[in-house]
């Protein structure tokens, strides 16, 4: 075994030597020796060079030994990465023992790359790095959310800002048409995780986003959408005995941007103009002048509390960090139906047991619970109910006598009419809506989701020889979650009601593990530094779950709260019970390697390779392997002699770099999509009307496609990094082009095939863009400040679809809108397709819809692109000022060039409320120059509502944080044994600048990947007033 390893190392050395072209050769005098470190351990791969004649050199072997022929009187230069180089005069000696001293001076920032770290100046790919200082004292409890606006080319999507709703990350655009294959691979301390919502931002040391293919390629088939590497905090060597810290935050939440919905007078005016309401009907219905502002009625001010207590310390042999964090986030919906509670602990420790062995662990324990209100659907949801409930209806009907006749009838019949201590929820007598009333949607059922997860790694780093680190890392996730739902019958109106009970419980648990073994080996040969890495990983994920439901008109033994569980179902004939469960397994096996070569800190070249194999639930056995190569290079011009004439004062650093690589996207494949199988006994028909027995049948599980494969991205990237004015100004620019092919397209075959959908590899998407990061920092005396700006421009388009598909249709707008999202060659993914609205015919008030094909008719052949939910530009700006103990942060982020499709009006249900915009701008006899048509001409006009008239500019700029902090002078606080005490106040998400008349432009999405920017009612971002304290002992 040892011989094999030696052999490998020798091969590497020979390879290294070949690269430099020259080997050592005989001279007048033979010397030999051993290079060791301070502890006496040998250093292999150290270079031993004759000073003044660099062609005479050697490298030490595995035991640190070297032998060399040298000219008389020469000096030897001995060097190794991470150690101070030493010049040793030879004199008359022939045998040497040279001790290299570790170089403790931190010369340069390092960044975490896959399976290793690199000096920032050596990085040849495009990596964005966010450090702890940008992540602490934020009011978000979600690590992904904390990334927003901090890294160019990384877009954070908040489809919902409800308590406990995680943000989604998009790196360099949208490479897939699927919903499961858009997010980056997430790695925390080497562990692959399914989300990073569990991770409190204040526990993070750094987040690195590997954006280009070459950086991400080491993760192969999973890296097609970039990789986010997170390193959690650890103690510091110099901390000694340690430190205790406590952070507290109190947040007052309230509704940020209010929706601009018609008030009662506008509503009446508009509905009368639409021809659906008359003064007579208002009288008939007994309208009493009510004017309800629903957003004001359903939202309130709520409180979020956060406590974090932790301990950290370290010495030469080990470090630890442990922290406990508790968040209780009560959302702004009145009542306690939108709540997120999380208790999390992070335990990080490592210890150098032997000089050649360090072991450690990173462990995260999370316990969470959420409750939420419904959103993202027009078919009855809290949010859509809030936006579209008519203003003529009060919030409550205080007594029975105030109820509508319909509610009285149902009340009398014993139905459950919902209400609270203020009375019954007032169900509109003007408009029968899917939602009935926002509070009906809130209270019609009790749903709770909770769980416990433990995520962690155990690792051993072996350093048998200097420069070689062999890591064996075992990562695991153990998770458990429990979902319960109790939904009793209720009645609000003939669309919002329920006549039977539903009781559901779902328990999921599982374990995931990964075992990775890899080795990093660095050594120098003259001015060449080589870093080699190779390894393998095996991942297995096992999930188990049981889902049970019971329903019926009278399914429970009792209905008091302590009976509302499946255990108390009765056996009434109409009580139906359903259980599903089957375990799931997935696995993959990978081999990977990397070679990095640096010459004299000027040239860097890196080559990555990865081979991935996936289990048979994703790919057929003969097609399971995929291979992902990449290559990248960087050139630090400022280290060239011809640049030495330029003053550091002007240009302190300049590097250009380029990369090319291939990544895959495996997330789109699951559940044997390629297989031709028969779903056995999954169909049924009852052949006897008199007997409940059914006959079972079997049929194909779908249209099979044995040729399915993963999506593959090819990306090249060029970048420039520069620092000017003695590093005060720094600049990073990247340009990339990323082409993703073999997109899995779930096509609806033509109707005549008779099968709903089939999956083929038939699409190609191109993302290209420019990313810019700019920083200015300076200080004058006690005053220091920095301005950090980042910006990313993205051009996304579909470049190929199978010729048999002209266009894939995504989400349709609600009933009666002639529009849908589309995926089509030449357009951005899932763009908004509909009619082009050209304005009003000022004589008649009718809308003018563009007859784009000129055939004299307006029909769907005139559909065109009318908007796109993907912004052209995303940007962030952070300004920090500090003076003595006072610090100030201003942080904002925004988008430009995206559109929002406002879906409030319903052509099939005209009594829904809508945006006041359409009333304010409507054509009337007295306002013939209006921008919107007369109400009556478009009330049921699906073409108009499905046109660009419903599209709004979705650009926004949001000031995410204005924070003022004060750190009490240390000489005061040390009297009470406090080493650091900072208090702060902050306004987070407080100001939003936008033209969108709906609610929050940031969250105005349907929640589905194929309909970005479709506003069907989303939980809006809350504005937050924050106070907090940081104490350390």
């Amino acid at each position: 075994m040892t011989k094999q390893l030696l052999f490998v190392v020798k091969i590497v050395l020979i390879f290294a030597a070949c690269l430099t072209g020259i080997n050592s050769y005989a001279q007048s005098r033979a010397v030999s020796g051993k290079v060791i470190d301070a502890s006496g351990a040998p250093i292999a791969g150290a270079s031993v060079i004759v000073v003044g004649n660099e062609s005479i050199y050697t490298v030490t072997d595995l035991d640190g030994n070297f032998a060399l022929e040298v000219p008389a009187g020469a000096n030897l230069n001995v060097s190794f990465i991470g150690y101070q180089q030493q010049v040793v005069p030879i004199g008359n000696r022939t045998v040497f023992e040279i001790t290299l001293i570790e170089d403790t001076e931190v010369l340069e920032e390092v960044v975490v790359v896959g399976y290793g770290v690199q000096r920032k100046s050596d990085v040849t790919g495009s990596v964005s790095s966010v450090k702890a200082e940008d992540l602490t004292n934020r009011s978000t409890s979600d690590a992904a959310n904390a990334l927003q606006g901090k890294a160019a080319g990384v877009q954070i999507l908040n489809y919902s800002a409800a308590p406990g709703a995680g943000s989604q990350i998009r790196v360099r655009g949208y490479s897939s048409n699927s919903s499961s294959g858009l997010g980056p691979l997430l790695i925390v301390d080497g562990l692959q995780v399914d989300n990073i919502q569990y991770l409190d931002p204040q526990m993070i040391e750094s987040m690195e986003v590997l954006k280009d293919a070459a950086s991400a390629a080491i993760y192969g088939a999973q890296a097609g959408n970039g990789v986010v590497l997170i390193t959690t905090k650890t103690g510091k060597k110099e901390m000694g005995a340690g430190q205790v810290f406590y952070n507290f935050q109190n947040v007052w939440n309230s509704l940020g941007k209010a929706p601009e919905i018609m008030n009662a007078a506008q509503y009446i005016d508009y509905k009368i103009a639409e021809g659906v309401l008359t003064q007579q009907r208002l009288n008939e219905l007994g309208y009493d002048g009510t004017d309800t502002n629903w957003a004001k009625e359903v939202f309130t001010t709520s409180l979020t509390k956060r406590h974090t207590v932790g301990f950290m310390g370290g010495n030469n042999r080990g470090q630890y960090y442990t922290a406990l964090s508790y968040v209780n986030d009560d959302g702004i919906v009145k009542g306690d139906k939108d709540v997120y509670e999380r208790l999390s602990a992070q335990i990080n420790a490592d210890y150098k047991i032997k000089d050649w062995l360090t072991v450690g662990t990173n462990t995260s324990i999370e316990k969470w619970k959420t409750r939420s209100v419904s959103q993202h659907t027009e078919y009855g949801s809290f949010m859509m109910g809030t936006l579209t409930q008519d203003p003529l209806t009060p919030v409550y009907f205080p007594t029975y006598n105030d109820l509508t006749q319909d509610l009285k009838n149902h009340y009398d019949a014993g139905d459950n009419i919902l209400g609270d201590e203020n009375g019954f929820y007032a169900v509109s007598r003007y408009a029968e809506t899917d939602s009935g009333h926002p509070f009906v949607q809130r209270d019609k059922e009790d749903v709770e989701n909770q769980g416990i997860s433990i995520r962690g790694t155990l690792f051993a780093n072996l350093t048998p020889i200097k420069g070689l680190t062999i890591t064996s890392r075992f990562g695991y996730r153990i998770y458990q979650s429990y979902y319960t739902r109790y939904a009793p019958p209720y009645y609000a109106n003939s669309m919002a009601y329920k006549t039977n009970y539903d009781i559901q419980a779902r328990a999921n648990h599982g374990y995931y593990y990964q075992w990775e073994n890899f080795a990093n080996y660095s050594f120098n040969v003259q001015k060449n530094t080589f870093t080699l890495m190779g390894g393998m990983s095996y991942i297995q994920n096992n999930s188990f779950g049981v889902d049970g439901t019971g329903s019926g008109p009278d399914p429970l033994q009792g209905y008091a709260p302590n009976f509302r569980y499946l255990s108390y179902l009765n056996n009434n004939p109409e009580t139906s019970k359903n259980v599903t469960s089957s375990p799931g397994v997935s696995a993959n096996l990978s081999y990977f390697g990397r070679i990095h070569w640096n010459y004299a800190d000027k040239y860097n070249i890196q080559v990555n390779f990865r081979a991935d194999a996936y289990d048979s639930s994703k790919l057929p056995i003969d097609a399971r392997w995929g291979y992902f190569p990449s290559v990248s290079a960087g050139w630090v011009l400022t280290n060239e002699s011809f640049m030495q004439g330029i003053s550091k004062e002007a240009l302190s650093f300049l590097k250009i770099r380029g990369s090319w690589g291939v990544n895959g996207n495996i997330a789109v494949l699951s559940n044997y999509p390629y297989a031709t199988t028969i779903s056995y006994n999954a169909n049924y028909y009852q052949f006897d009307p008199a007997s409940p027995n059914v006959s079972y049948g079997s049929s194909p599980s779908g249209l099979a496609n044995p040729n399915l494969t993963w999506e593959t991205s090819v990306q090249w990237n060029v970048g420039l990094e520069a620092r000017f004015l003695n590093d005060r100004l720094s600049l990073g620019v990247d340009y990339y082009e990323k082409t993703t092919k073999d997109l899995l397209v779930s096509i609806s075959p033509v109707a005549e095939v008779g099968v709903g959908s089939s999956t083929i590899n038939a699409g190609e998407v191109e993302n290209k863009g420019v990313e810019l990061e700019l920083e200015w920092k300076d200080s004058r005396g006690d005053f220091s400040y920095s301005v950090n700006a980042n910006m990313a421009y993205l051009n996304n388009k579909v470049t190929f679809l199978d010729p048999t598909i002209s266009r894939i249709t995504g989400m349709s707008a609600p009933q009666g809108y002639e529009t849908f999202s589309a995926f089509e060659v030449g357009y951005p993914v899932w763009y908004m397709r509909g009619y082009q609205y050209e304005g009003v015919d000022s004589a008649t008030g009718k809308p003018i819809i563009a007859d784009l094909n000129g055939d004299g008719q307006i029909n769907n052949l005139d559909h065109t692109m009318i908007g796109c939910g993907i912004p052209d530009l995303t940007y962030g700006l952070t300004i920090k000022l500090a003076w003595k103990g006072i610090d100030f942060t201003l942080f904002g982020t925004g988008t430009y060039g995206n559109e929002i499709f406002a879906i409030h009006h319903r052509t099939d249900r005209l009594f829904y409320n809508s945006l006041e915009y359409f009333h304010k701008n409507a054509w009337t006899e007295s306002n013939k120059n209006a921008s919107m048509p007369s109400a009556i001409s478009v009330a049921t006009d699906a073409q108009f509502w499905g046109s660009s008239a419903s599209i709004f500019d979705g650009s926004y700029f949001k000031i995410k944080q204005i924070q003022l902090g004060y750190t009490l002078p240390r000489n005061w606080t040390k009297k009470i044994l406090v080493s650091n005490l900072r208090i702060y106040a902050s306004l987070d998400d407080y100001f939003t600048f936008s033209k969108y008349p709906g609610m929050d432009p940031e969250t105005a999405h349907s929640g589905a990947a194929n309909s970005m920017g479709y506003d069907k009612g989303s939980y809006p971002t809350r504005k937050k007033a924050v106070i907090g304290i940081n104490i350390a002992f």
Partner: protein
Amino acid sequence: MKKYIIPILLLTLGLSSCEKLLEIDQKGVISTDSFYQTDADAESALVAAYENASYGLVRHNDYIYSPYNALLTYPSDDIYAAGAFYGDNDFLAALTEFRYDINNQAISNQYKGFYKVIYGANLVIDNFEYGTSAVKDRCISEARVLRAFSHMMLAILWGTPPIVDHVLTGADRPGNSESQEAVLRWCAQECIDAAKYLDERQSTGDKPGAVKITKGAAYAFAGKALMFAKDYSAAKTELKKVISSGKYALVPGNRIGENFHVPGDGNEEKIFELNHVYNSNIGTWSGRIQRSTWMQINLWNWRADRLGGTPTHLFGGGWGMIHPTAAFAEALIANDGLDSYRRKAWLLTYDEVLYDMPYLSDSDNPTREDKEKDPRRGIVEPVGLYGCEGYFHLKMIAHADDVIQGSYSDVNFLIMRYAEVLLMYAECCAQTNDNDGLQYLNMVQQRAGSQTISTALTLDAVKKEKQFEMWMEGCRFIDLLRWGEAAAKLASNGDSIPTFKDKFATESSGKHEGFVDWSASNVNQGKEHGFKTGKHELYPFPFSEISINENIVQNPGW
């Protein structure tokens, strides 16, 4: 060197092959090669075909009402598509008022639905061959009739739909068929050819024989296809086979309404209906609600939020999406007499709604006078009932007993009943001057308890009888098209719509008294409406289809 051993062992272990760990069997499936072999497999594939038929005909996937009923029932001169107000569920009113476009959900869903049935049938037909066993022969034949029925309805509604006689691949793009007549004749021939392998319904009491494809169903469909192909004498031959089989009978007049409720499932009058599932161990969303008409019961039931109460034997809530026109109601009453079984089972006058139905408030033993001022019955909201002209639909209104878990209907999905066979036969006789049809026309009239019993077989008499007997059963619109009367009868659909109100609510008169208010929203808004010759004879191929299948030529006028 000892210290190298651990890492090397680790590496060696790690690098050893884990590939066999990647082989994970799929659960719940068997390989395709092992299926489609035995008689049991043929029966099993056929069950799947019936399931597809349920999904495709009763309610196609994402459509919560029955699009089959919508396409065949809403465009009619006998009903108003009503609802809450003008604009409520407009995609249905658009069908009645001929304002629909090629995105109409009912149109696109049912088009897909028919081909879903065809796919399920083709899986049986493609995978088995005739002549290896009687079971396989029968299974193939039942599938062929299901396939033919779907093609027949496609041809009637779309004219020249592609004939799909084998399982297609995802890349296929079939084009239009040659002609409507060719498709109809193909369907008839398929049914006739398959019939010889099919079971005969055992007797009029054979309920299972009414919920699967039998000889009777095959001949009845063949007859309908031939009649729509205007080959009346050939149609007569096939229909007569059904009649002379003796396996079908009209239920007695006093049970006429039962045909549309659970007690009538599989009764003697049913030629073919898709059986609903009664097994409460199967979860609501595990295929039960998916093969029910689901929301249609809400859609069709009276608009409860405008009423003081709904009759206790009916399913309570509803959106009142259908009301009979007064012209139809009055013609029916004039034809049948007020007291015919049929009239009473089909529709009610407002007085009957108020005074002859059971209500919760009956517990007080009210007198007629009490009822006249009872706020717990009749229209009590001043806005009244949109689309109502004073007559109330009863025929298809779900009874409380028809409904499972208060939300969806347990009633079987009726495809054809014996009365239609008799009337088709009578018509074909009338078309060919064959007096044999008169006895069957009379049979239908007599059973209805009608005061009109024809003494001569005239086409007019048959047409009238069919309009009354088959009201709301998906015959009227396609009959009007076939008879060339659609333009005359449907051109003014949507001109003006009645709202039925009650002075009890509008004037607080203290006494129920209905009256009609008229509105003309389409006219006021300048909306194109009403049947247009050269356009509405056929439904358009849906946009979702023509946008991806360039081989489909759109129907005229679209």
